[in-house]
């Protein structure tokens, strides 16, 4: 496990050194500050969309289905009561 970690760290260090030594500008870089902002906005947006779908669509539909099912079962019970009498 430690050997694997050392190899990974060496690979990462070599790759980082290679990137730093390349004499070209970076045009697609996200630093820690902007990265943190990006993570925050992404999680907030996805969470808002998902919870809005669940809270404003799924739960009301579930409640409606339960009410319809409840009405049907009480209707059946009433019908059975009428036929029995």
């Amino acid at each position: 496990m430690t050997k694997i970690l050392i190899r990974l760290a060496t690979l990462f260090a070599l790759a980082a050194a290679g990137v730093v030594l390349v004499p070209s500008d970076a045009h697609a870089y996200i630093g820690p500050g902007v990265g943190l902002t990006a993570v925050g906005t992404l999680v907030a947006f996805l969470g808002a969309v998902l919870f809005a779908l669940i809270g404003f669509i799924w739960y009301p539909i579930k409640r409606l289905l339960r009410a319809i099912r409840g009405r049907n079962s009480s209707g059946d019970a009433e019908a059975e009561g009428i036929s029995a009498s």
Partner: protein
Amino acid sequence: MIAAAAAAVVSIGIFIVALSISGVASATGGVLATTQATVAAMRDASLDDAARERAVQRSAVKLIRDFASIVLRGGLSLVASLVPIWLLDAAGLVPAGAVFEFLSRPDVLAASTILMVVGYLAWTRVWRAN
């Protein structure tokens, strides 16, 4: 070259200060906490569906607000860091292109990233603890 580097350092410094003042990190932490609490509420067997529905709806509205808040805070921090570059360019002291070119160099990016991460860790673990 030295003027561009100095302008870049000022810009990075203002960005770090603006980020810490605007509280982007705490807002992001709040978003993660809200998401975890909502998932926990949805899986809580002691709550009925009506309570779960109310909790999820509240979280959805809160996350929309948090999304707008983080975008605004991050955008303002970015604009604040660009102000000195624009001012120096407008004054004819340092061309903005030279500063952006300097800021795009891989060694500058690596150094500023490492400094920012180390500075943040030092701030949160050492200074704040004392």
